[in-house]
């Protein structure tokens, strides 16, 4: 009797947030925190900074939630804010620092998303963990333009329509970016063919 339902309807939560209800916003953070954090982490390639940027994105979303209109999905709107915050971060950090953070196959303690696992052995080939590590590294080598398109499509599983709304870029352009990202990744991960 009188117990709060476990999953409150999203539109109700948004309405409550628009009336400055922090508790309702907390529930939206619970729902989307992990996705937002992971998109940002893969865009900027650094876990610690990703936490700060993701928090900034949520604060920004709450402050402008009165601008949210129901003509798009809340998750799409939130992702758009997150992607813009990640872009801001990359702009202010500059590409030089980005290169240092993402330098491939060099465990410099700069807090990358994944640690380097044990080297693959000829007898056993690459373990799943090793393969994941190299895929992650190869994604980080993509230019930001291709990286964000690839991550949204194949890591986060978005369709092209939603990506177009998040990135504000046409569907066909995004397809082309995803195609080219896949080709570059296949070239980087050429050795995957050896196991086939």
């Amino acid at each position, binding site marked *: 009797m009188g117990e709060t339902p476990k999953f409150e309807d999203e539109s109700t939560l948004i309405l409550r947030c628009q009336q400055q209800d922090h508790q309702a*916003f907390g529930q939206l953070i619970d729902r989307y*925190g*992990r996705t937002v954090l992971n998109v940002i982490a893969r865009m900027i390639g650094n876990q610690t900074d990703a936490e700060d940027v993701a928090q900034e994105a949520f604060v920004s979303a709450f*402050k402008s939630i009165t*601008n949210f209109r129901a003509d798009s999905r809340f998750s799409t709107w939130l992702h758009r804010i997150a992607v813009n915050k990640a872009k801001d971060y990359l702009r202010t950090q500059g590409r030089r620092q980005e290169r240092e953070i993402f330098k491939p196959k060099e465990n410099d303690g700069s807090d990358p998303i994944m640690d380097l696992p044990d080297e693959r052995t000829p007898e056993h080939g690459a373990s799943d963990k090793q393969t*994941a590590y190299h895929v992650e590294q190869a994604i980080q080598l993509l*230019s930001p333009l291709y990286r964000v398109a*690839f991550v949204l499509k194949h890591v986060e599983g978005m369709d092209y329509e939603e990506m177009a709304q998040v990135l504000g870029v046409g569907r066909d352009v995004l397809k082309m970016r995803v195609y080219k990202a896949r080709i570059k990744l296949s070239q980087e991960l050429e050795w995957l063919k050896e196991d086939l």
Partner: protein
Amino acid sequence: MTSSYYPDPPEDQDDMDERDWLVQRFVDQDLAPQERIDFLTEMDRDPMLRKQVLATEQMLLHSSQLPRMAVPPGFKTEILKQLDSAPAGQKWWDPFWSVLFAPRVLQWNPAMAMAAACLLIGMLWIVKQPVIPSVQEMVPISSVMKASLPPQGDKPVMVRLVMLEPQARSVAVAGDFNGWQPQETPLQRTEDGAWTVTLQVKPGRYHYMFVVDGQEWITDPFAGEYSSDGFGAKNAVLDVSHAL
């Protein structure tokens, strides 16, 4: 802002060979029925093509199964703490705004009315006095920007940015001159729907973008110069020394 490991190619398929193009469309299930049959027949005949498709599919499978970061403890608490310390939507000028615009009941009497009339007449007299022209004359850079007289050495100059966005609820500018923090530099709306701001900057080159309604990043359509922002959009470039 433009460098990266791979240069950004033009957004077309010119640099993709036909086989790559077909493989990508096959993976996206974008081939027409007959194209698909032809492709599968070719794949059956060509082991290299088969390997290429399989490697691509394998790479995509690994990508979709990449480990996901867990939300760290205290993540939500920290966000809610920030919301508590800076109430949402409240700007520093809001208390003054509410004092100015809160409705009030005004009590008056004939003496107060006469005093108010005298004050009004005095103000009208002041307004009618000739205006001394501004010392800092504005000179045009482009159709939308104006700046003060040409820069001398490193002395800051005044630059005005203008954005025509009558439907917008807010417009701000983010650029090299304010650390890409749009909240630092809001534009003011004029009666005709234009948004303007006057900046004081040292001579140099500055990249910038407008931010409409707090979310949408828009390139200044009237900038004299542009550069890629590395994400497929263009930054406007303000070259103060050159433009003057």
